[in-house]
């Protein structure tokens, strides 16, 4: 390009040079850097926006495979509206601005009808403006800190009240826990969850002295001091538990240190919100027997739907050891809800589908039927599982029914009056005190 241009300018007249430059520039810019899109009308395109490289690949690659698997299954059943579904896979490479760029590409260039994607909150925050601007649909499958209800996003993972609070309730009731360590990685999800839990615990009469909050950086690997601190905190004569919002990678060294320092679940149980079957695959779980996790799904839950899902998934991935986990189930539910909504309105038009989704019901894998709520969160059961020696969980408790996801936490000062209602109020942050849309201000 430079050769031609410098050479061109040297030999051509100025006017001709300018014209040539203009043509070249536009040609280059307008020819998108992506492979030419096929204008196939006989398929419905489904975007998959999960990192396949970089630090988040560890969690997200499985979700990409899940959607591919679900699309495959759906196409075997004849697709949707008589058309086959066509997956479009992109790799945002664990790079948050790249998430936004790739979302834009999926919607504008590939013209996908819906996107399944994101894991971290920051990636969701990064693509949010894009989905709003270009009016498309994102299904977000991971448990998160809540405090959000957007028209274009459907949250199929757990809100804090569908994971954290039931877990704490369980520990208080079943284990008679009086003293709490809230340990987390220093980012928004643990911060918010711990804020909510702190407020909740205090409302249950737990004194400030009986709550210890600790944050560590991402990928923290030297847990000696913190585990010793926990041990010390736990020796004050009251039953103590750790509520862990430690992020994926840091968990393995944390649990290894726990095991080695001899903290057993019978002394100080640890309940984790980010540790699932995938994470346990990297640890020898025998020393961790009895530590807990709270999820809306466990692979070990015995229902016909789950057994069928696991069997087909392992057949699809040709790996009889491949585990399943909670975010996968969230995608399973979300995908089926989207299919139902599309079939209901007989269109993939985002506006119509967005309006049709609240109220749609789809079976989950644990024997219940989840429902999309007006705040774009879903109803889910909550399970508490204890880690078993084989890397699986043994469900020791579950909520009696399904719990509706709260977009806005009732425990936080800033959000206790807010609700999300995209059916009646057409508003994600409706203030029930002032009866106005738009937060608590003015």
């Amino acid at each position, binding site marked *: 390009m430079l050769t031609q241009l410098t050479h061109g300018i040297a030999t051509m007249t100025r006017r001709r040079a300018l014209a040539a430059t203009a043509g070249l520039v536009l040609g280059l810019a307008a020819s998108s850097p992506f492979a030419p899109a096929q204008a196939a009308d006989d398929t419905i395109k489904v975007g998959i926006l999960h990192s396949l490289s970089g630090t988040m690949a*560890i969690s997200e690659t499985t979700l990409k495979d899940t959607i591919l698997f679900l699309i495959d299954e759906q196409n075997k059943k004849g697709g949707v509206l008589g058309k086959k579904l066509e997956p479009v896979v992109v790799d945002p490479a664990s790079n948050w601005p790249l998430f936004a760029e790739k979302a834009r590409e999926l919607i504008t260039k590939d013209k996908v009808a819906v996107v399944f994607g994101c894991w971290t909150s920051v990636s969701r925050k990064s693509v949010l403006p894009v989905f709003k601007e270009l009016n498309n649909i994102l299904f977000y499958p991971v448990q998160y800190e809540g405090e959000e209800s957007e028209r274009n996003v459907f949250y199929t993972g757990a809100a804090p009240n569908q994971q954290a609070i039931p877990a704490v309730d369980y520990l208080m009731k079943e284990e008679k826990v009086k003293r709490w360590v809230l340990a987390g990685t220093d980012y928004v999800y643990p911060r918010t969850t711990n804020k909510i839990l702190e407020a909740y615990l205090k409302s249950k009469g737990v004194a400030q002295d009986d709550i210890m909050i600790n944050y560590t950086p991402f990928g923290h690997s030297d847990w000696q001091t913190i585990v010793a*601190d926990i041990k010390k905190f736990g020796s004050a*004569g009251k039953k103590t538990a750790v509520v862990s919002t430690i992020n994926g990678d840091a968990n393995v060294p944390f649990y290894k240190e726990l095991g080695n320092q001899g903290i057993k679940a019978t002394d100080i149980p640890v309940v984790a919100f980010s540790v699932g079957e995938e994470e346990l695959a990297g640890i020898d779980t025998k020393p961790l027997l009895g530590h807990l996790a709270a999820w809306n799904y466990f692979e070990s839950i015995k229902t016909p739907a789950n057994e069928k899902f696991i069997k087909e998934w392992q057949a699809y991935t040709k790996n009889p050891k491949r585990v399943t986990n909670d975010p996968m189930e969230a995608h399973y539910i979300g995908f089926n809800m989207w299919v139902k909504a599309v079939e209901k309105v007989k269109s993939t038009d985002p506006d119509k589908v967005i309006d049709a989704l609240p109220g749609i019901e789809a079976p989950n894998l644990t024997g219940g039927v989840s429902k999309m709520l007006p705040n774009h969160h879903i109803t889910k059961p909550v399970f508490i599982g204890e880690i078993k020696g084989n890397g699986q969980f043994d469900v020791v408790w579950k909520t009696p029914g399904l719990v509706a996801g709260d977009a806005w936490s009732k425990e936080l000062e800033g959000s206790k009056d807010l609700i999300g209602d995209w059916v009646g109020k057409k508003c994600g942050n409706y203030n029930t005190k002032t009866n106005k849309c738009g937060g608590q201000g003015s």
Partner: protein
Amino acid sequence: MPALAGPFEDSVAKFANDEFSDTEAAIGEVAASGNALASPIISALQDGRLSADPDSKKVFITQTDGKIVDATTGAAVDKLPDNAAAVRLNNRLRRTVEAALGGLTLLSPDPAKRLAAAQSVFKSHEENLLPTVESALAKESVKPIKQAFAEARAAIILFKPDASDSDKLDAVAVVKARGDQEALALLTGLGDQPPLVAKAAASAVSAIQSNLAMWSMVQNAWYGLSLGSVLLLAAIGLAITFGVMGVINMAHGEMVMIGAYTTFVVQEVIRTRYPALFDYSLLIAVPLAFLVAGFIGVLIERTIIRFLYGRPLETLLATWGLSLVLQQAVRTAFGPTNREVGNPSWMSGAFELGQITITYNRLWILCFTLAVFAILLAMLRYTALGLEMRAVTQNRRMAASMGIATSRVDALTFGLGSGIAGIAGVALSQIDNVSPNLGQSYIIDSFMVVVFGGVGNLWGTLVGAFTLGIANKFLEPVAGAVLGKIAILVLIILFIQKRPRGLFALKGRAVEA
């Protein structure tokens, strides 16, 4: 249900209901029954060897030798019914089981079991066990176990509402003498006590606390040494490639990762083929990791680095690219998720030294690091390769003219550095994730250690690693893990301004030219 079932049979049958509350009731009833099978049933329950058939309500014990017996009769059974499943426990039940077992095994002939029983009684301090504990105490001849019984007795007395003040005061003294976290837990959890006892307990608490505060300094120092050993292990290979050869190897972390994955592969093979060798897996992995990483190192030196000598910044970029390729290659080959590397039994668990807990894996890593360091130092000093290496680094042209094959020495030096990184990977697999990102988390720290300690000086690396480790661990309780780390980085940046060549810099004309 069998028609002739007595109360013991009824109790045992409750295990088959798959309800935690029934299981709890069953444990209590069985433990209290005095039946000879009570102890086997409950220890089987603890180990997950107790199965129940929910239909026939029959319960079975799978003995440690694999034989199966009926839990109510002790009669041998051929095989478990098809729908029999292990009786499930949760944490609360596990504690109940421990307590029950403690009561049942206080008089066990096995000293280890008696000690464990005494300790679990100390925690559960169940009043109805007092007579048993006292008789056990009277009979006991092994000193530490006798001590444990005395402490268990003291714990029970402290919680016994009708115990006399003087008994309780004696008990406080016994617990105070124990002086550890659990003693503190017991004393702070006493609840309402007569004023005299409460006062004694309070003073015991503060005595224990100040004792523990002193120990926590020792603990920080130990943690610092342990962190320092990890840093040293990760940095030592870099000290060779960067310090001795002047090559910036940004793919150093990936060599560590390759070592860790080698360990994983070794353990996989052992698990599937020769499970008996598992405890030796690390011993096998160490030389293999050295060879694999070393070989890859030589390969890298021959294909990339040798073209870039004298261009340190270009080397830095090329090896960074290499690190991306290696990471993604491992991700493709082994998948992006963590891989499980188990701890052999001799690296699991911990022992108490005074009031601090020393975990075996950290201790072994410290010893291992020092051994690697010593071997390396000896190698550089006493072997022909070491001599050639030093000759080449000091004066390449002179060395070449004296008949040293400099390019061979370069390749071997780089291979040595990489191989040591591989060994570090074996050790790090014991405490960290084995994932494609493993190396990334150590590379910056390793560079800091080498630069801080002074390039070209292995002793500097040693001192640098331990200084940073200990400083980090003393900062962490004060500033928190994140701020502590930031503070260390800032301090290093400022330190480099003061001494641009590190702690143990070589001086003189030659190094500055």
